[in-house]
């Protein structure tokens, strides 16, 4: 019996079927690089998992030893500084890529029927990504880690009804205490990644089942001009290699950033000394600035509303287009949203308070 037959008897998958399942036809317009923005965060997610696992070999999630363990990684472990840099910049790039991906999906209307559920899954993935970024930074136990976590928990507290409960759940108590850090670590390294992996599987499966959105105008154009030109190309090896290229470019970028702008360590967390300026990570600047413009409750409620709206946008947009079929409302709403987010972020970045 040949090796192939031996294997086939035990793992009964038909290679033809497998090939068909995985070798999805990719619409020609995907050849544009703008469409790699989905694979980019996925690739970075893998980078984060790999570097995160490596870092977890040395990280200790206790307030007494956390800072020292991060220092050990940065100063003493071989290539520790490099892996930490990859992880730190991977986080920033991943969040940026996720946001760009969402913008691409939004502006190409790929959330529309029948893909509304996938959009909502993507929204949950966005929240998870932001949460993972937040919890990750708290683990270093620098001053900003501690105070950022404290402020964040207090903001959660100001949500009506569930605020107090969610804050206590997050901190493992009324205030930041000895058990808070291990809670954050579990969320960061186990719970959130786990949720994200499951959601990603569903997300990608739905894409595969639905197929990548084809453009209306492409469909018309294709038929009129070149009927013989294939409107699809193969995932393997064509698109796969594109993704490999993207992956390598990202690795080069990450390696350069990790070397040129390495991850440093600020002063160790001191619960008795509040720093002059407390700021969250850059991806929360928009929320932070928004919070300073009104009362905590008003800010939390308004942000909650915005989030809800984004979450159900496919349905809202669907209703709008039913009423006004030629409307470009989403595009304008999108442009406004992007400008507002960017504006608030830049504003927060530019000032100390």
């Amino acid at each position, binding site marked *: 019996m040949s090796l192939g037959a031996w294997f086939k008897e035990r793992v009964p998958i038909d290679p033809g079927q497998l090939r068909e399942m995985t070798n999805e036809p990719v619409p020609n317009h995907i*050849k544009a690089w703008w469409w790699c923005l989905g694979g980019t965060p996925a690739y970075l997610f893998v980078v984060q998992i790999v570097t995160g696992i490596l870092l977890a070999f040395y990280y200790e999630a206790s307030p007494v030893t956390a800072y020292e363990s991060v220092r050990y990684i940065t*100063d*003493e472990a*071989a*290539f520790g*500084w*490099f892996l930490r840099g990859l992880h730190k910049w991977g986080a920033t790039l991943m969040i940026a890529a996720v946001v760009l991906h969402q913008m691409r999906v939004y502006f190409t209307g790929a959330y529309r029927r029948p893909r509304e559920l996938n959009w909502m899954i993507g929204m949950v993935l966005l929240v998870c990504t932001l949460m993972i970024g937040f919890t990750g930074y708290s683990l270093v136990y620098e001053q900003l880690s501690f105070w950022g976590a404290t402020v964040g928990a207090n903001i959660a507290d100001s949500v009506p009804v569930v605020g107090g409960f969610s804050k206590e759940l997050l901190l493992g108590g009324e205030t930041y205490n000895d058990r808070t850090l291990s809670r954050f670590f579990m969320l960061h390294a186990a719970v959130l990644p786990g949720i994200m992996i499951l959601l990603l599987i569903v997300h990608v499966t739905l894409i595969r089942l639905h197929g990548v959105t084809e453009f209306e105008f492409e469909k018309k154009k294709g038929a009129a001009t070149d009927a013989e030109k294939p409107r699809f190309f193969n995932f393997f*090896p*064509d698109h796969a*290699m*594109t993704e*490999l*290229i993207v992956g*390598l*470019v990202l*690795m*080069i970028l990450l*390696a*350069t950033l*990790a*070397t040129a702008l390495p991850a440093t360590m600020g002063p160790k967390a001191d619960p008795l000394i509040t720093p002059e300026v407390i700021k969250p990570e850059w991806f929360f600047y928009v929320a932070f600035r928004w919070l300073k413009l009104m009362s905590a409750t008003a800010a939390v409620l308004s942000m909650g509303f915005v989030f809800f709206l984004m979450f159900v946008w496919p349905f809202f947009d669907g209703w709008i287009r039913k009423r006004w079929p030629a409307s470009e409302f989403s595009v304008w709403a999108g442009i406004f949203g992007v400008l507002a987010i960017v504006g608030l972020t830049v504003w927060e970045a530019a000032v100390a308070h």
Partner: protein
Amino acid sequence: MSLNVKRFVLVVLSATFLASLLFVQRMEVVRREQESARHQGAHIAVPASSEQCVSCHGENTPGVVEQWRTSTHAEAGVGCYDCHKAGPRDADGFNHYGSQIATVVTPRDCAECHPAEAGEFDASHHAKAGAILHSLDNFLAETVEGNRTPFNPHSPTPGRPDMGEVNGMASAMTGCMQCHGSKLALLDVDGASITVTELAPDEKGEPTNREVVARIQRDANGKPVFDHGTWPNTGIGRVNLDGSKGSCSACHSRHDFSPRRARQPENCGKCHLGPDHPQKEIYEESKHGIAYRDLRDRMNLDSPTWVLGEDYTAAPTCATCHMSGNVNNGGRITHDPGERISWTNRPPVSLVMDTDAEHRVITSIDPAERAAQVVDTANDKRQRMQNVCSVCHTKNYIGGFYSQYDDFVQNFNEKFAKPGQAIVASLREQKLITPTQFDEEVEWTWFYLWHHEGRRARHGASMMAPDYAHWHGMYEVAERFYMELVPQVREILEHAENNGQATAAGATRAVLEEILARPEHAWQESGPR
């Protein structure tokens, strides 16, 4: 983009990625090199027996622990307990959180690991510094400047109702004894002092008089109470309770016991300075001191071995000449500076440093007796000193200097010291002055002449400081002699003659006139010769 192009792009990108990783590798190597350079001596571990000490005292007196951490002791795994441990029968031992320890660490304790150094030190004059003070009538500090027994204050001190009786030993306590060393004393239950005399320790340092030990006053934690006049004290000749003499901490500062510090002149300068023995000032005036000040960075003070001619040659310090090793003596250090000194300029009349088996200076004038007693001659000592000089100076140069030095000492001895000594001795013998010291002006005059100015002059000559040899030295000696001593003696004699002590006065006058008639003093009467 065709597949081939994509593949080609991937090759190029892989190469670029690899290049960036090679750069990362390079940075890692650089970082490791820097790290190992930093980590060379930094790692120490607290030895098991001292772990408890460090964990508590690291909080309470962190300075002491941090100092220790920087020491060679710490690197070698010698901790608190290794030095502070006390035997069960030691007078000053007590139980401190489960360990039997003593506060005071004596040369006997240091000798456990450093027997050679402790032995050399024990034979030296440094170790005798306290004993000398305590057997001599330390009249000046204890009586003239204070009082041997407590006395009533003139009036109360406003704001300090606790300050009642005056401790008249204060000047000796804070002055003389801090350099020379106190006679360590514990208090007994009645407040009396318990010293080595009362404890009578055996050759292991343990007291044989167990009754006295039982009477030692102890505080609530069992710690013996020290007579605060005698402790704290790191005088170099401290008389310890275990019978040993001295304190290694005097030069080797605890708790880092830094050899680097002991090599520097400022260390010796704690005691070897001042009007009566300005060795530090003399050194600073001399060319040796000038060179040191300028070339301090090249002195290699942190080197583990510090051999002149090998580890450094920039300049000599006190330690260089008097103690440290050099290329001519095989790098051998001595903890007995007396080993290299050929004249002792301490007494009124300088003596040749022929020493006997007990390291005492031979004073006999009979050559046969001297030859019989001598174990280490002054010449041997001079030879050892000249081993140091020879690293930088030629034989003729050294020989010439020593001739100048010998001439200077002899001039002082013969013109002023011996005469002065003879005159004052005669006054005392003839009872023309009271037996009490320092109650008459002439006693102060003579004291200044030999103890202050005379010593300064000789030290200045010995260590190449012309100003101290002359203007601060012989000039002042001469002035003191001619303008004060002689007139004061004459006045005493006149007074004696007018008060029925003519015979006595006559005897002393004979001594005085005989001296002044000598050619070297004749300039007074008849002008320049």
